[in-house]
């Protein structure tokens, strides 16, 4: 051993009471591995949840909102108290869809936060297979763009996603919808629009998103075929779906673009507040549980350090008599705490990884998952490690300060 004497003394104290040291190290190890596991699991769950949610939900959506309630139009124009007699009022036809969609898409492409954009034509229709009738949504999509946003190609159970682009007569239906209408590949499916237009398509693919509301009532058509069905022009779009590199910045993007765009701009969190709430609550629980464990481990270390110092109070006094200053004594015990923290930290990160990996192999066949979800984020590991170090440092600091203040005369004289 060639260490400076303070470290050598710390090392001897740590190694001469191996059992005590191991107990202290285990406290930290357990705290840190639980921290790693809890956070990895919670972020895994959040990621799975987001993946599921964003399989049909874009980060930001632009659409033409319904016109305002105009049933009391008179009071907006005439002074209060004006008597009017209007019966059976009618709403005149408002503009459907988004005008100048090309212009808007070009503008959106200049936004640095945006990673992908796709136009859609969404309409409510009846799906009919002679006797069976189901209402649902028909989504006319830009085939390549839709896949960029939602990875729809991965949901195909039968058929190939790209085929939709070349088959104006082809349609993809959700798996539940296909079942309720008894449809197989190459069967005919009749579509009836709200305006009374009827058209028959051939089922060329079946998809499963694992969101039953979608699988039960959605079908995809190419956007061109949909415009044709509605007898609309080649610029006609009802929704513009936007994805961001970081979905957490959706509201930021909304704030930037909504003053410029004369339509409703809605972020995923506005549309689905419960998603965000759930993910935040899980984060809070994970942090609370793991911090509690670390604090308990911290008290364990504090106790062991205090015990060690009480046991060695005479030796501390004698070291002081021989010329060790208070700061040397503090250094000895802080070194012990830090070494316990470091070893516990490294072992804890390893154990945390092993526990996470084991749990990640537990089968969990729900909503398209095969096993329990888990994320492996180095940031979680670094955070756990630094929390562990801080805890042991604090837990070692107070006893070591006490040791530094020991008055050697009192102890040696008895």
């Amino acid at each position, binding site marked *: 051993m060639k260490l400076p004497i303070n470290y050598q003394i710390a090392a001897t104290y740590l190694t001469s009471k191996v059992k005590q040291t191991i107990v202290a190290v285990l406290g930290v190890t357990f705290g840190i591995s639980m921290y790693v596991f809890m956070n990895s699991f919670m972020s895994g769950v959040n990621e799975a949840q987001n993946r599921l949610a964003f399989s049909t939900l874009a980060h930001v959506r632009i659409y033409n909102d319904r016109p305002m309630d105009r049933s009391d139009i008179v009071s907006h124009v005439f002074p209060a108290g004006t008597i009017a007699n209007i019966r059976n009022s009618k709403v005149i036809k408002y503009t459907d869809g988004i005008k100048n969609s090309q212009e808007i898409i070009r503008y959106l492409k200049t936004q640095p936060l945006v990673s992908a954009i796709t136009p859609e034509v969404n309409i409510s229709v009846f799906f009919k297979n002679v006797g069976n009738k189901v209402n649902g949504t028909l989504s006319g999509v830009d085939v390549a763009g839709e896949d960029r946003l939602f990875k729809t190609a991965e949901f195909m159970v039968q058929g190939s996603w790209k085929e939709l682009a070349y088959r104006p007569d082809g349609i993809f239906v959700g798996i539940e919808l296909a079942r309720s209408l008894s449809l197989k590949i190459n069967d005919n499916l009749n579509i009836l629009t709200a305006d009374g237009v009827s058209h028959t398509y051939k089922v060329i693919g079946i998809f499963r998103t694992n969101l039953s509301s979608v699988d039960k009532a959605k079908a995809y058509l190419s956007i061109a075929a949909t415009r044709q069905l509605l007898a609309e022009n080649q610029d006609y779009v009802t929704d513009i779906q936007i994805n961001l590199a970081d979905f957490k910045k959706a509201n930021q993007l909304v704030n930037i673009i909504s003053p410029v765009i004369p339509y409703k701009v809605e972020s995923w969190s506005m549309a689905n507040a419960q998603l965000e709430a759930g993910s935040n609550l899980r984060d809070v629980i994970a942090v609370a549980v793991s911090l509690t464990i670390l604090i308990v481990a911290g008290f364990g270390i504090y106790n062991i350090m205090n015990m060690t110092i009480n046991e060695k109070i005479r030796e501390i006094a004698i070291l002081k008599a021989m010329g060790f200053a*208070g700061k040397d004594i503090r250094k000895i015990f802080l070194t012990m705490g830090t070494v316990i923290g470091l070893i516990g930290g490294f072992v804890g990160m390893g154990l945390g990884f092993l526990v996470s990996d084991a749990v990640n192999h537990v089968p969990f066949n729900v909503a398209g998952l095969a096993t329990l979800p888990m994320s492996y984020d180095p940031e979680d590991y670094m955070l756990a490690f630094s929390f562990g170090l801080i805890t042991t440092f604090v837990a070692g600091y107070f006893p070591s300060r006490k040791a530094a203040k020991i008055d050697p005369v009192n102890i*040696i004289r008895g």
Partner: protein
Amino acid sequence: MKDSILSASNLVKYFHEPETFQVLKDISFEVKRGEFLALVGKSGSGKSTLLYVLSTMDTDYEGKLAINGNPLTGKSQNELAAFRNQHIGFVFQFHYLLPEFTVLENVMIPALKMRRLSREEIETKAYGHLSTLGLQDQALKLASKLSGGQQQRVAIARALINDPSIIMGDEPTGNLDSKNSQLVFDIFRDIVAAGHQTIIAVTHDEDFAANCDRVLELSDGHLLK
């Protein structure tokens, strides 16, 4: 002509617990380099208290203390610790070795703290002291495995390692049988005979005191001439 190694002037000390009580009453004396001095007195006379004031560990006193020409009154605890490390060696009634370290490490620790010599030089020196005291065979044993007499000799070797100007003993033979007491006394005699080191020892052993160069007797906090 021998010069002065330690000078104490007008030392006064009070205990405040359980009630204020004056332990040391205006004590002044000088110790010459190479002297073997015994502090004697009845229990409660203040002899141990005086030794701890002289040792610089107890700083709660009035008066002035200087060792080797260095005024020590009013210095910080850290400065005093460094001073003790270099200039004062201690031998206590109970050996107070560090039980988890080997004999050799125990002897080396004060020198490793001072860091004036390399580890190899310190080790050679420690072996030298241990063999002078007849302990070279025990060097690699844990300190706690030795007999009481051996442990006290290790403590002496530890006190000597930094070549201190003064060695202070608080009843250094108080816990030893007569054979070991004689052994320790002879070692102290040799140290003083060798040259520049001074020994101040509190003792109630009359034989021990009788063979010292000078005896200072305390009674109720006063120095009896």
